């Protein structure tokens, strides 16, 4: 049983470009949350998707958007990239997104903006 998978592993972009990151949740999970982890920091919540809708959003600008597909996989899109968007982007999946259900994290996508 595969856990949470993310693609690509690494990505290099230049300022102003757009990027799409992908996440496949753990089998049986229907909720996907995205986190941004800057170097040396703890992960910061971006948003959560459940039933193909954004259910909660953290303190991130509208340049960050997402999508969830009927098979529960998810994409994170970032437009007009800034140098400060360089980070590890983590996807976590859970069942129902209920607070006490364990969230399983993927290995992340390392985004570098030049």
């Amino acid at each position, binding site marked *: 049983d595969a856990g949470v998978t993310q693609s690509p592993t690494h990505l290099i972009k230049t300022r102003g470009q757009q990027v799409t990151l992908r996440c496949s949740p753990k089998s049986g999970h229907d909720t996907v949350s995205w986190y941004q982890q800057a170097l040396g920091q703890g992960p910061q919540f971006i948003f*959560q998707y459940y039933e193909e809708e954004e*259910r*909660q959003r953290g303190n991130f600008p509208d340049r960050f958007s997402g999508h969830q597909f009927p098979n529960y996989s998810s994409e994170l899109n970032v437009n007009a990239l800034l140098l400060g968007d360089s980070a590890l982007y983590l996807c976590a999946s859970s069942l129902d997104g209920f*607070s*006490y259900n364990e969230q*399983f*994290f993927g290995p992340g996508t390392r985004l570098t903006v030049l």
Partner: protein
Amino acid sequence: GESVGLHLPTLSVQEGDNSIINCAYSNSASDYFIWYKQESGKGPQFIIDIRSNMDKRQGQRVTVLLNKTVKHLSLQIAATQPGDSAVYFCAEIGSSNTGKLIFGQGTTLQVKP
């Protein structure tokens, strides 16, 4: 604002010793806390959790202590092993409806052989 913080950025211990990693949280209404371990190149991995109606919970070689009076969490690792070397984060649930996690900055645990 929302924040969970850790007292020390790096902890170095001798193999076989016990490790204690501390964490302070700011939201007195938080009722669920989790410790995660993150190894280089990997995502955070669940270690142990505790709810606010408990003050201690034990797992395999790990114990979490919760002091609600001073809003303090600690993670104790018994007989620390080289494989325990990683960054450790405490996290609290920021929203009971969605399980939004609020992470601290992290403590790097270095185990010396």
